[in-house]
């Protein structure tokens, strides 16, 4: 199946990336924001036209052409485009030069490319391509910390496993293939115990890149439905348990950190673990919860991550060891940080509440004791968010001179925070 709207979005992002790569930093940012806004408008506006949503062309034989992907993938396009807009609007110029911004757009194009071509072989190629794009950025930035080597040490096996899984599935061994693919996915999701690359990646890499790379597996999740369908029950149960364990352990690791980026890494890991748990849980309620959690997570975690990036760009190195901020002068930044963080951990009045509630509830029958650990993980993640907020925006009389949100940042954050709050009232699960 080929979906035209994601193809158009992909083409737009690729065109913009080639312009951005050659422009000066300010022009690059402007072009990127225009392009991301256009993709967001497209992804939100097209589903509102009935003729577009019902369009389907079954020609040439064996290939279906539609304007929009169906089912869950439709929301994936919107969330990916919104996250993309947030990333390009909020990436600090100092740590995100035009080349990096262009690479971020290409990674986003890979993500929407998944939605354009719903087939296993292109998915495997795009999977590898996204990893390569990130690796090449890290290698260019190599400052002796070996981050690109660490990244390659995990992602080369991930790509190989995913590719081998795809090939095995194609030649008629879907069970073995699904297990191989699941292992590749687990590495990409930084599940325990193959998570070693992730905290360091979030600590050292540009945060825009982290968010964009995090958006890629979202496309992959649309394939996870079929992945779990092929997986026999024991491995699927194991997949869910690994996800749940990751959620709990990462939550514990996150709350004790003194470096905000490292805390963020574990918070992201914990959320990804929850999503894997929900998808592997097989109960319709937990799968719905996982899908909703992932949609909210993309927006909320992206907002949380990018406000942290903006604050870091304004203030320099940050620490959670002692409260050292003053929110009086940056109320919008502080408000956005708190709202996105709380939405991430499923606070009431945000979309995440419905998702995490369903996720926990759906797991009760299948995991009679483990669901309590999940509620603990959700609670601890809330502590991490609040600890970050209090440490970064309170406890100091001094004002470091940082300014509040720039208009372009306020524009992107207003859209995302608005979507999270509206999603809180109308979660869209019925």
């Amino acid at each position, binding site marked *: 199946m080929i979906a035209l709207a994601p193809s158009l979005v992909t083409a737009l992002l690729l065109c913009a990336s080639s312009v951005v790569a050659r422009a000066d930093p300010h022009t690059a940012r402007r072009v990127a924001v225009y392009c991301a806004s256009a993709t967001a408008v497209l992804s939100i506006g097209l589903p509102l036209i009935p003729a577009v949503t019902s369009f389907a062309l079954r020609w040439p034989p064996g290939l279906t052409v539609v304007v929009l992907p169906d089912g869950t993938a439709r929301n994936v396009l919107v969330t990916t485009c919104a996250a993309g807009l947030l990333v390009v609007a909020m990436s600090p110029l100092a740590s995100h030069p035009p080349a990096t911004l262009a690479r971020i757009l290409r990674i986003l194009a890979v993500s929407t490319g998944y939605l354009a071509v719903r087939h296993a072989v292109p998915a495997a190629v795009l999977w590898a391509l996204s990893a390569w794009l990130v690796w090449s950025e890290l290698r260019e930035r190599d*400052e*002796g*910390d*070996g981050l690109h*080597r*660490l990244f390659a*040490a995990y992602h080369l096996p991930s790509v190989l496993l995913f590719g081998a899984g795809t090939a095995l599935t194609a030649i008629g061994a879907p069970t073995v293939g699904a297990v191989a693919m699941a292992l590749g996915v687990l590495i990409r999701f930084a599940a325990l115990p193959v998570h*070693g690359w992730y905290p360091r990646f979030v*600590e050292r*890499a*540009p945060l825009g890149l982290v968010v964009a790379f995090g958006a890629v597996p979202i496309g992959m999740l649309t394939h996870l439905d079929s992945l779990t369908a092929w997986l026999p029950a024991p491995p699927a149960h194991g997949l869910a348990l690994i996800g749940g364990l990751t959620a709990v352990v990462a939550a*514990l690791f996150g709350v*004790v950190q*003194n*470096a*905000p*980026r*490292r805390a963020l890494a574990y918070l992201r890991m914990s959320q990804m673990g929850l999503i894997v748990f929900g998808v592997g849980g097989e109960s*319709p309620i937990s799968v719905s*919860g996982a899908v909703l959690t992932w949609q909210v997570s993309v927006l909320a975690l992206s907002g949380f991550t990018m406000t942290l*990036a903006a604050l*870091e*760009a304004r203030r320099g*190195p*940050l*620490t959670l*060891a*002692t*409260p050292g901020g*003053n929110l*009086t002068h940056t*109320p*919008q930044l502080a*408000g956005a940080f708190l709202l996105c963080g*709380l939405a991430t951990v499923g*606070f*009431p*009045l945000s979309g995440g*509440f419905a998702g995490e*509630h*369903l996720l*926990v*509830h759906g797991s*009760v029958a299948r995991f009679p004791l483990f*669901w*309590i650990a999940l*509620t*603990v993980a959700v609670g*601890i993640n809330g*502590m991490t968010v*609040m*600890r970050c907020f*209090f440490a970064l925006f*309170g*406890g100091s*009389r001094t004002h470091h001179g940082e300014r509040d949100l720039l208009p372009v940042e306020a524009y992107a954050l*207003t859209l995302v*925070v608005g979507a999270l709050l509206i999603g809180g009232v109308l*979660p869209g699960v*019925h």
Partner: protein
Amino acid sequence: MNADAQRYLLLSVVALPLGAFVFLGVLAWWGRRRTERTVSAVVVSAFGLAAASALVLACAAAGGAPVVTASAGTWFEVGGYGFHLVFAGDGLSLPFAALAALLCSLIGAFSHRYLHREPGHLRFYLLLALFGAGAQLVVLAGALECAFAGWELAGLASALLIAFFHERRRPVEHGLRAFLTYRACDVGLLAAVVWLHHTTGASTVVVAPDGGPVVFRPPADPRDAALIGLALLWASMGKAAQVPLGGWLPRAMEGPTPSSAVFYGALSVSLGPYLLLRTESIWAGPSAVGAAIIAVGALTAVHATVVGRAQTDIKSALAYASMTQIGVIMVEVGLGLRHLAVVHLIAHAVLRSAQILRSPSLIHDHHRLEQAIGRPLPRTGRHLERLVPRTAQLWLYRYALERGYFDAWLTDHVVGGLVRLVRRVDALDDRWARWLGTAGAPAAPVPVLGTEPTGHPEGAETASGTVTAAGGGEWRP
């Protein structure tokens, strides 16, 4: 009054404070400046109207009108599981809702002068509206999920108001401490909601056949009921500041006096016993839950009264006095003295709120009184000193000064041990990642890209932070 009018009135009790919060929140986000008078008028009017609605319904209920229930629809639903926005007004919830709205309205009016020209004036009212909406959600919840949503909102507003004077470090640390305690206990409520729904298929109230208060349907198996009851008790212990989790309450007095009055004198600490009263039908069967509630309440009452006597500042003394009374109310709840508990809860809320509001001027009056009579005011409580042996007095005094050692025990041994262990494992994990990244590569200085190199064994000063009880038991690096 017809049934529809009653339903709209009931919904308005929750919707008005929530509407005020949303209105002020949108203004705050866009940085639109409004006068202090406008801001306070919005909140005071919202709570005033909500109080009027609740009072009308309470009067109707006192006149023998049937229980009012109102549904605001289904928020989300998957398969057989749905989250229903149901509210219930009965003999228990309506007086409490009226009290909550009335107190919030009065505090709002009082704060207009008290916080005049305070930089966080709008923030205060925003949080007061959020708290009021959360408290009304808990009080009027006809589904346990609604109560959970309100519970979380009230906790968040409470923590943010403790940290209201955010330019000082202490309020921020104390706000965080309160939030951590709340969040740890909220897990109990979430678990209770999920388990109740799982075992009974629903978590909404049903109207009792005799027209009495609405009740939750208990699970068929008494063990499930006991588990849910204990989870609810755990949730209540956090909000009601019961032993051993009550260390946040005296610290919470760092917030503005009006918010201390309405939160820690009146409503917030009362939500714990209220939740137990509301869910009594679930846990009343198994005797273990009742016994646990009595034990927790009695321990708290004894502990708080001993510690409260050694406090040297008025707000801490009042905090421990609140804790004592809430402990006694918990005992009443556990004993099944439902009506006594409700009357005690409401009376305590009103009186303690007034006492805390009065506290800033009390010391001034105290000095004037001493000057007028020409000598220090006589000490009270001598009868207790006569009853307790001298050696026990000294031990009790030390116990009171150290606040029962609970905070030190919690932070050093319970949380601290876990934190140290997790940090050690994290350091090992990071060492492994660095080895993978640099194996076979030439050694080079590790640059910092917008962050400090924490989490490394070498960066010991930040990576190996510990949790100590020093300085009041905060998290310290």
